[in-house]
């Protein structure tokens, strides 16, 4: 077959955070939104990018001398001139330590599927499968569609994690091969949504209705998990949670099986530094446990089925040392 390819940021095995059971999550590159809290800023651009991970660097400067575009220099660390860097990845090939890292790898459908089937045994024992996340899972539509078709052919449970910005044609292409949709409802106020993400939530709300209707007509075994990132000073306020709850009440469907409240996570701080981007939320604290419980309570009070509400993510640890879990790639939310 003609090789359709896609750009994948990362494949995470044994993910326990991206849908039911044990999953392998494929983080696609490219996202139409620019959320101020984005946990995976390296996933936003569709094109491949280079980053430098200082802790791995041995200072050999092979990258500096090899770069065909003169984009790299060394001044107490590798400095990437983003105006010159074309993301060709030459530096990442010569780097002995993987300090120079190419974000985004081009995969062919067959080889990606082969990779994704490796944990089939665990999918079967756990009711898990594959989640296509991102970035935005629907952006590289054709590629993702082909991957999903093959996965279904192998009897694998599939999920997509989407921000909801896509045309309905993309959904038409993907939904027949998707068992579970993880769908972000971040902010109900359209103005705020624009401020926070760069886009209005009109399309998102339209698409969620479309998906729910599709699910209602093709119910078993399909489901939708709604996800809301709780960002301090942004989405994490009572009125927003109430509004999302009410919207879910409007959608009211058997297909909606879960509403996740995902607590803000600041582990991505150094990702911004590496990409040479300043981050508004750099010093924003995590939610306290009390705050998270408060939002959970509001969500439960206002949504038609309180059992849908689940919370996830780290909360602030009071005390002298914070023991953090392995930084999890969170979805686009």
């Amino acid at each position, binding site marked *: 077959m003609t090789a359709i390819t896609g750009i994948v940021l990362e494949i995470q095995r044994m993910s326990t955070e991206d849908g039911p059971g*044990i999953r392998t999550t494929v983080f696609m590159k490219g996202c139409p939104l620019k959320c101020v809290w984005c946990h995976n800023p390296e996933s936003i651009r569709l094109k491949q990018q280079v980053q430098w991970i200082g802790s791995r660097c041995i200072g050999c400067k*092979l990258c500096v001398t090899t770069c065909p575009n003169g984009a790299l220099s060394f001044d107490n660390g590798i400095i990437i001139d983003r105006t010159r860097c074309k993301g060709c990845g030459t530096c990442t090939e010569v780097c002995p330590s*993987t300090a120079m890292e190419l974000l985004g790898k081009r995969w062919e459908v067959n080889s990606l599927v082969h990779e994704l089937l490796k944990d089939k045994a665990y999918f079967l024992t*756990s009711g*898990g499968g594959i989640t296509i996340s991102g970035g935005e899972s629907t952006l590289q539509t054709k590629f993702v569609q082909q991957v999903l078709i093959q996965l279904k052919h192998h009897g694998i449970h599939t999920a997509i994690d989407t921000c909801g910005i896509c045309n309905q044609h993309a959904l038409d292409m993907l939904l027949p091969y998707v068992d579970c949709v993880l769908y972000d409802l971040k902010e109900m106020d359209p103005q705020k949504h624009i401020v926070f993400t760069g886009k209005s939530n009109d399309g998102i709300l339209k698409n969620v209705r479309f998906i729910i209707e599709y699910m209602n007509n093709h119910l078993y075994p399909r489901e939708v998990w709604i996800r809301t990132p709780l960002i301090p000073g942004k989405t994490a306020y009572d009125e927003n949670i109430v509004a999302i709850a009410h919207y879910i009440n409007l959608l009211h469907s058997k297909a909606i099986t879960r509403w996740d409240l995902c607590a803000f996570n600041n582990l991505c701080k150094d990702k911004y530094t590496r990409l040479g981007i300043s981050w508004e939320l750099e010093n924003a604290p995590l939610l306290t446990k009390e705050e998270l419980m408060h939002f959970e309570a509001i969500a439960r009070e206002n949504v038609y089925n309180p059992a849908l509400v689940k919370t996830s993510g780290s909360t602030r640890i009071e005390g002298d*040392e914070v*023991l953090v879990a*392995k930084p999890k790639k969170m979805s686009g939310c």
Partner: protein
Amino acid sequence: MSALPQSTLKQPKNLSPRIQWLRDYYFKGTERTWNNEFTCFTTGTPWDAQYNEMTFYIVPETYTLMQTMYQSFRIAAHTVAIPDGFFTWSIPERRAWFNKEVMVHYLPHEILPGDLIAGARFNTQTSMCLSKSEMKKRTKRVMGKNGARKKMKWFHDHGFGNSGATSGHIIPDYAHILHHGFKTVYKEIETIYQQLSPKEKKGQKGNTLRAMMTAATMPRDVALAYAQTCQSLAHEQSNPSRKEELLQMASNLAIVPWEAATTFWEAVQSLWITHMLVMSDENYPGPGVSFGRIDQYLYPYWQYSLARGMDREFGKEILKCFFIHCNTAYDAMIRTGNNGITAGYGQLITLAGVGKDMHDMANDLTFALLEVIDEMSPILEPKPNIRLHTNSPDALLDKVVDMVASCQGAPFLLNFDERSMAGMIREAKKAGIQHLINEDNVFDYAPVGCLENTMVGNDRSGTVDNNLNLAKAVELALNNGRDFFPVIDPITGKVEKVKQVGPKTGNPKTFKTFEDFYKAYELQTRFIIKKITELYEESESIRAVFHPTPYLSCLVKGCAQKGMDITQGGAEISFTTLEAVTYATTVDSLLAIKHLVYDHKVCTMDELINALKNNWDGFEVLQTMAKNRTPKYGRDDDYADAMGLRVMQLWTDESWNYKTKSTARQFRPGMLSWNYWVGSGYILPATPDGRKKGQFLSNAICPVNGADINGPTANANSVGKVLGGKDHPGEFMDYVNLLPNGASHTITFNPSILKDPEHREKFKAFLRGYAVNGGSALQINMLDPAMLKDAQKHPQDYRHLLVRVTGYNAYFTSIGKELQDEVIARVSHNKF
């Protein structure tokens, strides 16, 4: 300041005042007035000795202390009055008589306050019972110019590994004693003896069987001595309920282990006396003398007593006393420090697992034992190994997960039935003993020590006896059969000239392809395997002549039937295991050579060898590439894992080519590693995978530290693949396991995997998936780096902190700094 609240340390719970007192008393350690430290006994002859160094040849920490221990046990020894004509008896008869005499007439028979199980002191160092000329011969063969010790030291100092005929590591036929008593064993031996011809009676067979008959009466007389103690304590006792207990114990001891047990209390009493005397017989406290499927063979007694009114909690109380007794094995050298000898006992109990129809056999006693473990923990002995499989019941997995969640460094191992049994079936085919291991009985296998799979009651597989550094073959192949560096004697400082030790496999600089190099590696691998089998022959053949264990022989099927002591290969199933160390380091080194020198021509062979000879100093870029840019085993990368399988097939196939000459024991492959990957790291030079000298080698079947960057499932899949994989029609349940002994695999999880019920379900599913894709045995580590670092600084606050290192567990504060750092590195690596 501890980073985490103390409450995260597992605390014992639900202990009665009796057990609380016994447990607290045990942990008082040297402050106790009573303990079970080695007591030494001699025949009184000036040449006599007790300490058999050969059984510790696999413990390099003891090498500098061998002479000290040899002498100090001699000096400390009490004289036992021996009968006239003692030295005219055969050696096994002398040993049988002597050990019985010590256990019955010399060691005190004490009962600790409140204890429900008798059998307190068993750590002994008893006379070798050799005549002057025998001792002279033995000394020459062990300590002489060309003796076992010297050869063993050479082997170790040159980085090959170690080898020695080691005690323990067996599951005696305890069930037979419970069901029939020693009386029956005695009769069985006597019958066989009576059938011997007069000539045979005078010969070795007769000697061995007479010794076994003497040994078979030892537990009866020991039990009766304890019965007397119970009687007199009962007499003095004013508390009526304790008085009643003591009288019941006296009555139990009058029956078992000589007669068959009827009640649960009798059964546990019988089991304990029978077991502790194995440790006395071998003068070897604990390591690997394992119980097997205790929840299966004790279950009829459990049911019997419960049906007749035994309170379930009282049944657990009996088990808790039994647990305390197991822990007293550690008293052996309580005042002098353990010196590496007593750090990893491993009196293993096996729980659950499939039965004949592939259904799980977990029962109420399984759960009672799990409760006991949970309530007693942290405590080291006995070590539980829970057998899991694809159909393990939810209730069992829930309990396992609860225990993993609540115990830091949960003190147990998981064994996986399908893969393990496939290995046992393979071993039966390879050794032509399908009549002894087959689909009708393989489900009754059980691990000894940590995870070393054996059959039960008729099998000695020498599971820790040979530890071979596979990476040595890489070194030799890179230097045409010579060591990289001259060996410097660690004690004298004498420099030994580099000699041709292995075959000349060619100057690697002339190799045109990787296959040329691999050919050299293959020849060197065959050489080091031959070398270790020759070394083993030394101690094995000496033991066969001078160190019989007639009591243990009574408990292992085959010995009486053949009229042959177990040390001479009497067991029906008589293997010795070649445990490969440094596996992943070897695989990654071969992958690095292929990648750097041949496939990508990053450097020449000359440059690589130069870099290794300079310990990578001045070659940092190349070293960094070797570490980071070459394929690695442990990532579920089919290319790298194919190399892993190739290496595995090579060395395992080769190991089947050897048998011991003196005792006809077949070599079989396994991967235990114990802690050699630490110590040998200081001996083996830099390796092509980017490791510097002094850094740790890889542990058992685990990927090189930090190499498993694709998470637990990928790590597990790699392990399953290199063991032979699955989906092989015609093999046992389609599984192949090239390592019948099994392989130690450790995965460290972040505690967040168990943070809520939803995640616990996912973790259970991981374990079920591991049974399909993974290896034969798994240890789950669940540790916090901050806690461990604090424990290094404040060991006094963490006395009970248990950690797992390979197949053995230890109190964190009792292991060396390097190992502590290693454990911490592993945990931190979670943040990769």
